[in-house]
């Protein structure tokens, strides 16, 4: 008799353990839902962790107003499928209130503004723990992130002042006004997430699968056209290509790749043979070598 788990089962067990710790240690936790595959896997893990009870915390979506329609459609389907509660924080509302100011210029994006809306949403609902689907393999600054990441009253992350994390003992104690970001799938890699989606037969938004789309080539990436959000520059000509997206960020800044992968199996094959990290297609990370670290310090998840 062999009592060993496959690595995916072990990662699953760890993530479920972390989610149950969150439910047990915090008064009002929430799960940050971006519509991307990592947060989708998180929702499915949460269902397993508490089944047959419903997921005991709401899904929080920070809507930039620039999401792909496919992401929104999927989000609403998933919330219904899970019987979960959805809370939407709107970047456009923050802009209307004047707490967030729209970026100007050629590379304007709403990525930085998300942080404002996220913090406002966490504060107004008095959430004391927000679970995110970040993984340590995504980016250098995340390699040292804890499962339980302490944030001060301003939502800031201080890389020098993080609690040691030993064994499976997670310390969620805090002062009033402080809160935690928790990352249950910290130890998963992109390939693990895809394999889990395959193994568990998890449905995904259509954006992830190869399809025909009108795009423009911008800064080495293929960006979807859009009548309002993507203003054509003088040298840009839209063309229809067979593409798919490796991440589901905001439409104006998420680059597509040329692909014929229209099933999870084909995507896995593609991921296994592609030699570019998935964030490599996101314009916001390329601004400087340490851009992720800067955004984390400001409260970006």
């Amino acid at each position: 008799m062999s009592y060993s788990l496959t690595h995916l089962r072990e990662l699953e067990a760890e993530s479920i353990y972390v989610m149950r710790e969150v439910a047990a240690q915090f008064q009002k936790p929430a799960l940050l839902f971006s519509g991307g595959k990592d947060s989708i896997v998180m929702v499915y893990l949460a269902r397993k962790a508490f089944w047959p009870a419903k997921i005991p915390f709401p899904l929080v979506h920070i809507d930039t107003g620039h999401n792909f329609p496919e992401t929104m459609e999927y989000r609403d389907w998933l919330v219904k499928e899970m019987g979960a509660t959805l809370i939407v924080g709107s970047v456009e509302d923050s802009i209307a209130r004047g707490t967030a100011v729209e970026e100007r210029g050629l590379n304007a994006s709403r990525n930085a503004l998300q942080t404002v809306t996220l913090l406002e949403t966490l504060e107004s609902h008095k959430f004391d723990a927000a679970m995110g689907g970040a993984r340590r393999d995504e980016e250098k600054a995340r390699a040292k992130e804890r499962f339980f990441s302490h944030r001060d009253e301003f939502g800031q992350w201080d890389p020098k002042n993080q609690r040691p994390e030993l064994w499976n003992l997670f310390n969620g104690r805090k002062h009033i006004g402080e809160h935690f970001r928790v990352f249950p799938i910290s130890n998963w890699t992109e390939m693990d997430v895809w394999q889990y989606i395959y193994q568990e037969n998890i449905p995904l938004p259509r954006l992830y699968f190869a399809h025909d789309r009108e795009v423009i080539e911008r800064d080495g990436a293929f960006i979807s056209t859009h009548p309002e959000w993507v203003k054509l520059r003088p040298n840009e000509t839209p063309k229809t290509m067979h593409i798919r997206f490796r991440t589901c960020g905001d439409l104006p800044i998420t680059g597509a790749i040329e692909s014929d992968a229209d099933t999870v199996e084909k995507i896995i094959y593609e991921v296994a043979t592609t030699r570019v990290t998935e964030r490599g297609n996101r314009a916001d990370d390329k601004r400087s070598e340490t851009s992720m670290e800067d955004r984390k310090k400001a409260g970006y998840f």
Partner: protein
Amino acid sequence: MEHLVQDGKFDHHGYLNMELLRFTTAGSVDDGKSTLIGRLLYDSKSIFQDQLEQIEATSKNRGEEYVNLALLTDGLRSEREQGITIDVAYRYFSTPKRKFIIADTPGHIQYTRNMVTGASTANLAIILVDARNGVVEQTYRHSFIASLLQIPHVVICINKMDLVDYSQEKYEEVVEQFRHFASKLDVQDVRFIPISALLGDNVVDRSKNMPWYEGPTLMYTLETVHIGSDHNLIDCRFPVQYVVRPMSNEYHDYRGYAGRVAGGVLKPGDEVMHLPSGITTKVAAIKAIEGDLEEAYPPQSVTLLLEDDVDISRGDMLVRENNQPKVGQDIDMMVCWMDDKKPLQLNGKYTIKHTTRDARCVVKEILYKVDVNTLHRIQDIDSLSLNEIGRVKIRTTVPLFYDEYRRNRNTGSLIIIDEGTNTTVGAGMIIE
């Protein structure tokens, strides 16, 4: 990942059946630790093209002659500026046989707490020894930490063999030195491999320069070391983490006890005893959304249904009547202190977390601290400062259900929390 692709198809079966090995690497700036990790990532084709381009550009900007593989594991900006690693960084790679998680920690004495943190979840420790210098102070320190944290497997990599002309004599001298010292330690499985991380000898590919070495490469060792017995499968321990109560018509009276198996194997029909009450009942079912499970073992997260209605909450434990953990409030343990602001104080009061149970405690006695470089015991002390390791007795406000750390890392470990700052200030490994 290319290794998982054959004849244009991805090997799903292979990937879905891999095991997970967590290992730690302790080393200092100069002993080639970052180069070794870079080499493992590079030779196992775990580096993406954009990452490689980035480090090539950085190496070039710095005027370095070769691509500096150590840059792959360089983390936060402050560290890049200082050129050192100051925390625990986790790295990931896989081969067709296993997925690996590296807890990459700095090796200097001022980072003892980081090494302890990285070691707490590791199956295996890689300890680097510079072949030119042999076993030195930091080798003692790293080995002591591996032993204290009960890492099941230790691999001593004798690095920079290229700088000693791949000398067998030199290698054997280091092995002998280490064996002599290791007899004082509590390590079960120690292996030695002569390598050159810089040139790749015996890391992933077998060295042509050391025909006298007949053992496996480091990668082969990582892929094949037997980790099936690393968990305790004998003493049944189920700390209750969360009570699942659906409160729906369909599951009206359902009370599921969710938790992660901390030891032993549980099956439906098994008799279990509840602590602290001492009441016995039976496991009615092990529930999962996919269907009921036939058994549960570490480190699975499961939900148990019991036959009788017993009042059970988080922090309680299910065990077997004829194999119970120790139950008590007086705990004798080794502590590594992690707070840079305040030392551990005799008579000091703290909060502790042990399995899923919280308690408060008072420090009754500090017996000695260990000089981690010589293993000498220093007595007559009344505090433990940052990075110091010592033997401490505490009394807790409520009984803990515990085992010796060397018997079970899950039920033998606890963390100490400062009640003012709420930060984690100490790690405890229970002796009795």
